[in-house]
């Protein structure tokens, strides 16, 4: 279901808290975004993570898959900042490489959810009728199933694995994009500028994609951040349950899953991948809140689906 944190009065109130003072309206969206310290910090953290992921071969001191029995369960040290795991692999290197998978999952999921959800919402909102009603009922139903359970069922059908986990997580994100775009489309299609464009005699697809969509972009932008956050969390949860990325590939979720069995010998094993996930999700959430606040003046509404894990 989707109790959607940001539809709730509390969420917007919390977002407003982080705003020190109302910035002047003429600073533009980016100016307003820059005024939000938490949001900028989150954005910086994400950029840093992206750089780390891209430069993984340079940053990581060791091959994430290289095993060395002699190095088994070494506590964090200068040589192994995050310690080593049950095969003597360097956990720091594995966390750095894990960022690649996590960011890729976020990107792929947003692409799937957006490319399927936005057109669905545009078509439904624009044409209405029974097709729209049926699509929305189906999407409502998908929203009603807890995200992690929906992802698990999709995995049950497709089979476990990295790629299928990304696909599942992307599908889970479709209804939110569709609902959001549909709501904007419904509101926009009655506006004068759309009616005027229609009066010029342009076709429905031009109206939808060239006239309405550019004006519905704000809430979609916020949803991109929200979906990426939910997607990374869900992928980690699936891998944690053994339904996503399989060992030995480094994924934060599956590292925690393995680390769970060795908490006695190696408590650090259960620590660092978790810090990585939580930090990333936190950054994305803060960026989403800041974006929403910065775009608020322009009629943005967010539909944050329940996070899955």
């Amino acid at each position, binding site marked *: 279901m989707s109790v959607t944190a940001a539809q*709730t009065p509390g969420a917007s109130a919390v977002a407003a808290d982080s705003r020190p003072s109302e910035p002047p309206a003429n600073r533009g969206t980016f100016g307003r975004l820059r005024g939000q310290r938490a949001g900028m910090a989150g954005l910086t953290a994400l950029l840093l993570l992206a750089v780390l992921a891209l430069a993984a071969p340079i940053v990581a001191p060791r091959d994430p898959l290289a095993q060395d029995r002699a190095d088994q369960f070494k506590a964090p040290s200068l040589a192994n900042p995050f310690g080593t795991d049950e095969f003597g692999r360097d956990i720091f290197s594995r966390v750095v490489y894990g960022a690649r998978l996590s960011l890729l999952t976020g990107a792929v999921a947003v692409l799937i959810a957006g490319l399927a959800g936005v057109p669905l919402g545009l078509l439904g909102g624009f044409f209405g009728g029974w097709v729209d009603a049926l699509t929305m009922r189906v999407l409502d139903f998908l929203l009603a199933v807890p995200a992690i359970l929906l992802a698990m069922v999709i995995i049950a059908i497709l089979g476990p694995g990295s790629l299928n986990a990304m696909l599942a997580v992307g599908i889970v994100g479709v209804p939110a994009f569709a609902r959001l775009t549909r709501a904007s489309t419904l509101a926009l299609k009655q506006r004068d500028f759309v009616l005027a464009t229609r009066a010029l005699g342009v076709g429905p697809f031009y109206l939808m994609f060239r006239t309405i969509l550019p004006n519905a972009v704000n809430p979609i932008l916020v949803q991109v951040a929200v979906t990426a956050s939910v997607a990374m969390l869900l992928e980690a949860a699936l891998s944690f349950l053994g339904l996503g990325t399989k060992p030995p590939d480094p994924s934060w979720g599956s590292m925690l899953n393995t680390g769970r069995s060795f908490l006695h010998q190696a408590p650090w094993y259960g620590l660092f991948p978790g810090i990585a996930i939580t930090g990333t999700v936190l950054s994305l959430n803060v960026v989403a809140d800041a974006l929403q606040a910065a775009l608020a003046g322009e009629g943005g509404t967010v539909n944050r689906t329940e996070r899955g894990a």
Partner: protein
Amino acid sequence: MGKYIVLRLVQLLPVLLLASVAVWLMIYLIPGDPAIALLGPDVTPEQLARARERMGLDQPLPVQYALWLGRVVQGDLGVSYVGSVPVRTMLAQRIPVTLQLTVAALLVALAIAAPLGILAAVRPRSWAGRLVTVYNTLAMAIPTFWLGILLVLLFGLQLKWLPTSGFVPFWEDPGRAVRLLILPALTLGAYVSAVLARFTRAALLETISQDYVRTARAKGLRERSVIGVHALRNALIPVVTVVGLQFGAFMGGTVITEAIFDYPGLGRMLLQAILQRDYTVIQATMLFVVFTFVLINLLTDLLYAYLDPRIRYA
């Protein structure tokens, strides 16, 4: 009220029908023969033939659905191919176990959320009020599976205060059951506690600005009774709905929580079934989850209408 209940029940039917179609369709979405999907790879030709006939695989799809729905309505949820046990029996064993965890998690969530939400609304600018914001942000970002590991590390392995796995029915040994439930309930309840605290805060802030609260203050009531008696009571109405709506978050969370704490509930059963491709069990569990979810939404709406008569007449 009676008319409202009937109306809501009628509105439920299409949702339940859609849910049943979705759950039934799952078997047919799996590549390959649906009968093999249900019975598993090592099945005798006779069993396969019987299953095919039972499912009516030679009939049109709507007929197959009707056959299946007919059996489900009579309580026949099929047999697990792994354990050769009727799925109904398995569900009946697991549901009370998960219910115990969910109730405990709900209590934990309420116990954290109520004071935090009230504090944040009454003293938003104090350090305590700010701490609440930090707690909320953290509790919403920290993944359930990592929180569980942290709790095990700290309270289980480091301090050795609490057991980290196992289950005892509450009525058999309440003391031990509570000790076993604390860590899983905290793990499962943390996220919901943040959602509820946000909501309580927002709802209370809204009621505090109402005229009748100002009146209560103006006639010289102490702040404690202004908040406690006048504001809180009305603020709690929307909070009740949110508690109901969080059931979905609980259902998702149990899968992970039960995996961490080796808790023998519905979530573990579902996870095992997915890993073993035991599709009858997956189907039945999903059906149960969706039906319960819809039912709880209905109960929440009814409770809301009962608490706030304006809903019924709107």
